[in-house]
């Protein structure tokens, strides 16, 4: 068992790499949703608009 080398407080824990990675995933999610919904789903031709009845 190794002894505690350094003790840090709650907010001193600073996982920047994890934050960057999750930020990247988040950005990807937003971009892909925007593309799928606005470009592929709404942008495609033959827009169904319901009935004329």
């Amino acid at each position, binding site marked *: 068992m190794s002894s505690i080398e350094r003790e840090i407080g709650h907010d001193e824990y600073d996982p920047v790499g994890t934050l960057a990675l999750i930020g990247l995933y988040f950005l990807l999610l937003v971009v892909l949703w925007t593309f799928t*919904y606005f470009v592929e789903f709404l942008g495609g031709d033959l827009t169904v608009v319901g009935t004329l009845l």
Partner: protein
Amino acid sequence: MNVHTYEKVWLGAAMVLIVFFIASVTYGAIGAGVAMVDDSEETIDPDTLGEDDRFGDPRVEQVGDDEYEVYAVARTFVFQPDPIEVPEDSTVTFYITSGDVIHSFSVVGTNANVMVIPGEVATMTVEVDEPGEYGIVCNEYCGPGHHDMEGLLVVQPEDEFELEDDE
């Protein structure tokens, strides 16, 4: 409770993302006017389609400026009429019924996709913009020739379009 700053950021961002998802779907339904397929048509006798005013002669009909109606029949294993020809920049209402079993009418690569049930008239209105060709397929298994069941929807340039009756 002690919540880490990064966790607060993540929670906030996730909330914003959910609002963005819901907002974009709401926009699609209200702002962009995308609608669901309707089911308000009356029923019809699939055995006497030949004598029906609309489906006796499957066709494309002009009902107004840039407004067309398509009366289509799906049977094992064809779509009638084939090809369906409509002009660009028009509003097209499809009335589709089946003469035998359950089929579907799916315009490939678009949101125009409806189940076709014998005795029911599937109705959907679409807006057609650019000229082009779309395949139509049946995506309800309807028998041994199901995989060969296909039709064609041709969107023609305005100056090339003419109804079959006018020829």
